[in-house]
């Protein structure tokens, strides 16, 4: 059973967060191990497995990027594992440039400006993703998701860089 089906939700890129929460809470009310404390061992084990699967589904679908990657995989678009080399020359170039800019950013404001630009890029890339899914353009979906994954990682790096700058200041 895929994550969407498990929570009784349509397999779509756009997902109403409140609906996801409702579906998840309702399912956990049924399967959470706390409901099975006084039940026999086999029922407890089953509940634990079901609850773990629900948690996996919820965690995957909650975050827009992991949801998009998951939906892509359901549609036959496989991404290389996390941390593997980027095989897209355009993205490679973009990554090198933004990383260098981040490295050179000496103030919290400069880092914030870079982070803001990358957030904007993410929003735009997400907006385009919907159309790509509608067209079933697998190579384009793969390319867009790789870029989104990079931008997401960049946001994290920017956060770390900002903490560092502030720590040095303090």
């Amino acid at each position, binding site marked *: 059973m895929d994550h969407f089906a498990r929570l009784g939700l349509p397999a779509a890129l756009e997902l109403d967060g409140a609906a996801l929460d409702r579906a998840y*809470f309702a399912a*956990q*009310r049924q399967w*959470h191990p*706390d409901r099975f404390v006084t039940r026999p061992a086999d029922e407890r084990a089953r509940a*634990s*497995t079901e609850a773990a699967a629900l948690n*996996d589904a919820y965690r995957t679908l909650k975050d827009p990027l992991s949801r998009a990657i998951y939906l892509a995989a359901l549609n036959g678009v496989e991404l290389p594992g996390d941390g593997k080399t980027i095989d897209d020359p355009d993205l490679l170039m973009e990554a090198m440039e933004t990383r260098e800019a981040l490295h050179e950013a000496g103030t919290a404001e400069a880092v914030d400006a870079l982070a803001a630009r990358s957030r904007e890029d993410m929003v735009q890339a997400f907006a385009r993703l919907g159309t790509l899914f509608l067209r079933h353009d697998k190579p384009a979906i793969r390319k867009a998701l790789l870029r989104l994954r990079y931008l997401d990682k960049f946001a994290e790096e920017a956060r770390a860089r900002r903490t560092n700058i502030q720590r040095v200041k303090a």
Partner: protein
Amino acid sequence: MSLLEIHEPGETPMPHAGEASLAVGIDLGTTNSVVAIAREGIPAALHDESGNALVPSVVAYPEAGGVLVGEEARLVMVREPRNAVASIKRLMGRGAADLHAVAGVLPYEIEPGSGQTDMVKLHIGGKARSPVEISAEILKALRVRAEAALDKLVERAVITVPAYFDDAARTATRDAARVAGLEVLRLVNEPTAAALAYGLDKGSEGLYAVYDLGGGTFDFSLLRLEKGVFQVLATGGDAALGGDDFDRAIAERMLDERKRDGIADQVDESAVKTTLALARLMKEQLSERDQTSGRLELAGAPSFHALSRTDFEAMIAGPIARTLGIAANVLTDAGMTASDVQGVVLVGGSTRLPLVRAEVAGMIGKPALTDIDPDEVVALGAALQAEALTGGGDTLLLDVTPLSLGLETMGGIVEKVVPRNTPIPVQLAQEFTTYQDGQTAMAIHVVQGEREMVTDCRSLARFELSGIPPMTAGAARIRVSFAVDADGLLAVSAEERTTGVAQRIEVKPSYGLSHDDMADMLYDSLDNAEADMAQRLLVEARVEARRNLLALDAALAKDGALLTGEERAAIDQGRVRLEAAIAGDDRDAINAAAEALETLSKPFAERRMDRGIREALAGLSVGELESRVGE
């Protein structure tokens, strides 16, 4: 007992379920422990005869023999410092490598574990004892208190642990409960338990933070409350930061002042414990007033020490700032800011410090919630959960893993498999491969922590996966599965996927206890259990006797007419004698009185039985009767 057999179906005076054994909530704290019970959603801490809910988490093995816990143990600590131990929670699941974290805080002779098991042991009362068996004594004392207060057997408990407790410390806590004869229904994280106590009380909804600064641990958790759902979004903390550290700062300052005044102290165990006790007192006074002083006498040399709140606050500013930094990280992890938080709950005795209250309120921008006693709130939440788990409740607790779980890969780098703040239970798997042609075995090292290098994380377990079919390097696909259950406890298994060779692996916890150790401890606890046992048997005798009295009363009310006045008087007399025995503390007397009453009421029971049969047969035709007799 024959009296029990004469009930009409559905007329048993007491429902049988839940009568034999109750489930309590236990806050096993660094400084103090509390046991509580909830009934119909109303939790209450259980008090001793003098009305104290708090049991100091001190265990003593006095010269005179026996084991003492709580206030009595604290007295022994002053008289015989080598025979008593406090703050044992700090050493739960700790190995020799962790000792730097507590060095100097605990004035005990600590020896690193030897051989198979790595958990440290303490030399207390002339014997090496593990933190598990010392904690078990506290749990036993809480169980006895609960049984005495409730006059019922207590065999099951929800026990709270700091959210930031790692797998080894959680396992150690569960083992301690086992040694104490308690079945752990669930290990619940302390901040979550506190939120439960508040949430149900107020029916709050929205995003809440719990700031829990206890004697030895700090936790900060963010929870979303919504219609009976308690969803932990993120948690963080420090398992070795708490009020004990503040005591230590004051104690060190006093010892420095003595040195400056030319007093040459022999700072031994006894001196440290005396100084720490005074330091704690002064700290507590500074929550009430701006200035305090104390007289310290070591080896006959007295000295006087004054301390202002301002100076004290300067001394603890560093650790408090660290707690706020952790809180900020937790907010970031959850993708929230302080302004999203609707309220912050304060838990733990150390949150009585005015500085802590002011700093936390300042950070969240709202005054902290303190309506529930911060020393009791965790136990109350645990009691609510114990009731919900056994009686069925509508509340749903969704908690997370506090620390990432990972595997060691080439070069001592950690490959994270379960990131921190993942909702539990969780079952995740990761695939690995061989790096040499024909490799048939693979060492697997499970670690817990956020750092990139294995050496900076805590080692949880090491095992070897053997019997991999020889293949070219990189061809084998070894799937390592992690399962973290709702107690936050880890299980690991592995399988070679191309050939389907499943490996049952026994995970050897790096800081756990061997089976032998566990067996020894259970055995020891049986040795020392006489007093516990006596209390338990007394409670059992009372419960049984009361149950029979109720049954007898019900029978008398229904069929009292079957008795002559004389018989009735004899039974009533026996009844009074049994009630008197129940009020006393002599188990044999209770059993004897119960037996006497049973003998007295036997003819009554028989007559009721006869009548029951007559009634059952009444109205039947002879034919029906004959066919029944023939059966």
